[in-house]
């Protein structure tokens, strides 16, 4: 048999696998949007009123239903991707006059979506890598805060360094801070068997209160607001365009790191050990792997990833840290890792979805007067459908999945 022939079935299998893996999440998103539409309709007073007069004017009620949904999702779409008309107009102006302002305004929504996706990618990877090793990292939120604070400190307290030293230093500081915050519960688990779910939650609270204290005391900028000083320009992640577009190198960095995590998980002995421990700790021990070392390692890595998410947010977007800085990235990332099936590529896609939804939601609120919370409802629905794929399989009459897929262990019970 020639080399080519042997490669063929493998490639086909890969494609088929990818399609099968993506099928349920894609249908979950679709179903989530569908039910979200129902929620939008029933929460709209005008539509309800129209249905009150359904028998006198049924077409009006039905028409209003569709127009309400179309307006809402249209606004959501424009809010997250931008308007096509504006893009055409911007391009026209750019080519005829060389003026970029209109063009930049047209791509602004799209770039904002990518900006909100960035921390999602990194926190999602943090939770996903934990899942791969059988650990449930609920502490991404705390690690995010600590990472942000550490990088902000390095960013504003040091001055006079060139950017090519200062920026990497600030990035490293953030990752290291998160790593420590993840390693502590990892060590407690490995050494004493304390469950990581409990410990990471507790570490979150410590991180929140610690940041409250730091922001009102040692790290507070001059003035009354509980925020840190701005980081030095030499520590900023460079932005691609002029203000107000905030898209910066952090997005590229997060994609690169997703690639790195993929490589680590599937192409190295380190990842092989992590996945062995996650899928069968007894088997891993039999094979001579150290369970404790792997637990500490994976929690450290998870912490570093979440810390880096906070870092990228500080150095690339906000430039300073304030209270309530995270907006729940760490918690959403649990859902996101589930949606992405703990696969780096899946996590990136899920993070983009969440980023686009979140960034479009503001537009939807202002344009279509739909409360921003509807996005949380849709996200929640998507997560339910992904976590309980049987629902989706039933609705769409999909065949049962073959059991030969490497499944992700989410948790392995208490006290182990």
């Amino acid at each position, binding site marked *: 048999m020639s080399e080519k022939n042997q490669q063929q*079935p493998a490639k086909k299998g890969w494609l088929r696998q990818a399609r099968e893996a993506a099928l349920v999440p894609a249908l979950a998103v679709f179903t989530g949007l569908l039910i979200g539409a129902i929620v939008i309709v029933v929460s709209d007073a005008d539509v309800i009123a129209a249905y009150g007069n359904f028998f006198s004017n049924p077409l009006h009620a039905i028409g209003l239903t569709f127009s309400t949904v179309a307006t809402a999702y249209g606004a959501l779409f424009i809010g997250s991707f931008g308007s096509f008309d504006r893009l055409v107009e911007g391009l026209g102006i750019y080519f005829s006059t060389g003026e970029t302002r209109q063009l930049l305004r047209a791509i602004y929504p799209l770039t904002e979506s990518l900006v909100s996706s960035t921390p999602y990618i990194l926190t999602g990877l943090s939770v996903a890598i934990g899942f791969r090793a059988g650990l449930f990292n609920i502490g991404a939120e705390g690690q995010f805060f600590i990472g942000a604070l550490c990088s902000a400190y390095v960013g504003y307290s040091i001055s006079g360094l060139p950017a090519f030293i200062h920026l990497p230093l600030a990035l490293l500081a953030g990752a290291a801070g998160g790593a420590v915050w993840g390693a502590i519960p990892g060590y407690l688990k490995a050494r004493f068997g304390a469950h990581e779910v409990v410990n990471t939650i507790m570490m979150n609270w410590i991180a929140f209160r610690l940041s409250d204290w730091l922001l009102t005391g040692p790290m507070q900028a001059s003035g009354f607001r509980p925020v840190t000083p701005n980081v030095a320009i030499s520590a900023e992640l460079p932005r691609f365009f002029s203000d107000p577009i905030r898209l910066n190198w952090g997005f590229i960095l997060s994609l690169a790191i997703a690639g790195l995590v993929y490589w680590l998980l599937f192409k190295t*002995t380190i990842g092989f050990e992590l996945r*062995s421990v996650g*899928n*069968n700790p007894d*088997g891993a021990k*039999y094979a*001579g*792997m150290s369970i404790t070392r792997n637990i500490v390692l994976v929690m450290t890595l998870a912490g570093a990833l979440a810390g880096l998410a906070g870092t990228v947010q500080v150095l690339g977007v906000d430039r300073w840290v304030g209270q309530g800085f995270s907006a729940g990235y760490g918690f959403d990332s649990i859902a996101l890792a589930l949606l992405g099936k703990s696969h780096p590529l899946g996590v990136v896609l899920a993070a983009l979805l969440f980023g686009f939804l979140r960034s479009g939601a503001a537009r939807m609120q202002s344009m279509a007067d739909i409360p921003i919370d509807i996005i949380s409802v849709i996200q929640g629905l998507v997560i339910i459908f992904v976590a309980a794929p049987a629902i989706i399989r039933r609705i769409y009459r999909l065949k049962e999945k073959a059991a*030969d897929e490497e499944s992700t262990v989410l948790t392995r019970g208490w006290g182990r």
Partner: protein
Amino acid sequence: MTTVLELRGITKRFPGVLANDHVDISLNEREILALLGENGAGKTTLMNILYGLYQPDEGQILVRGEEVAINSPSDAIARGIGMVHQHFMLVPVMTVTENVMLGIEPTKNGIFLDKGQVAKRIREISEQYGLEVDPDAYIKDLPVGTQQRVEIIKVLYRNADILILDEPTAVLTPQEVEGLFQILRALIDSGKSIIFITHKLKEVLAMADRITVLRGGAVAGSAIPSEVTPRQLASLMVGREVSLTVEKEKPQPGEVVLQVNHLYVKDEREHVVVNGITFDVRGGEVLGVAGVQGNGQTELVYALTGLLPVESGDVLLNGESLAHATPRQILERGVAHVPEDRQKHGLVLPFPIYDNMMLCTYYQPPFSRGVVLQEKAIMDSATELTAQFDVRTPSIKVAVSTLSGGNQQKVIVAREFSRPIKLLIASQPTRGLDVGSIEYIHSRIIEKRDDGVAVLLVSSELDEILALSDRIAVMYKGQIVDVLDADAVNKEYLGLLMAGMKPSEAASKAKPGEQTVERVF
């Protein structure tokens, strides 16, 4: 004699597999029908069809002459068909009574559970068939054999008169097997009919009234136990001549490879379960450790392989101490371990075959360079080993969880035997496997012995010990009570030692019996 159950032309297809191919089977009243076949012969599929878990693509099911459609287990139960699964469906933290009443809870005054009534029925059933089950005991406290009797009670409580037992002896000790056979006889005497699924020839010959052999999804033949030999049955099952005795030359023992001195080991609950053991194994010989399961053999093996800590005493491999070494250090010094529980320790089930083939050596060249896995080397090695060790699989990329038990075990054997090793520790190496796989794995073990490897074989199957060992150590309550030369062994004497009798008493009690050993599973 009336026919209580008849399957006519049952055919079931799964994607790519013809699991059952026009199978005809009939069961008479008060009869034990043994359904014999290798793993993957379609026995379990057939019974799942009968129990309503699958629907046949073709064919009819007749219960007492009447054609019926069985669409769910509750249909089956309504027709008086009950199933005792290979893996028990019991809730460990509940009592026997609670487990039995699950799904059909009788109530007092409409809302309160009437446990008293159920417990009373359980006692009646238990007495009638000699099951000896305490309705108030918690499942988690019961030995496996008793848990199985709870499963039987569950079926009887639902008034089944056709019982299907799926591989019921796979998890039992020899004594428990004996007890189960008596229970089955009592059930038959009171008018029940039984289908007994197994791949063990010895059991079939001991207790079946009639035998139907399945091979490749179709009926390969039927027989009456008194009219067939084990050899005929085995070749019917496998489809070719199989050797039931292990061909081996006289051993050529060399230097002492493994030396165990006054070894003490505690189990996970801190009980001392290996209680001062001393023995040695030479290169080129097989030392068989015989004993009823649960006498410390498992923990002995765990201690030797680093999975449990050594409390005191020493373990020497070629004179070097392994007592406080990690599993990896032990592996690297040339110890291979075929673990007792292949799914718990031996494999990472969701991983593909190629990953499992290098589970212990992934960090060494050629499988990795630095931290980077070398996919080509991994694939090449796995492809070669899969062919060399006859692992039946469509591809090395499938998850090992999809392989049959025999092929899973071959993956482990391939991995462990292909490393350079000095000591092979094989624990229950053929548990749950079919005749063909057993034959194969036994011949590989003897091959290793002849290469000069020291082999420590732990098995609760006395026949396996007798067939492979050059010396036999009998273990009872954490101690080795005697070590015998396999040539001069008396089977009855061994049995008495395993049951806890002192060597002096046992020697006087055991009559000189037959000494030739034919291995029959």
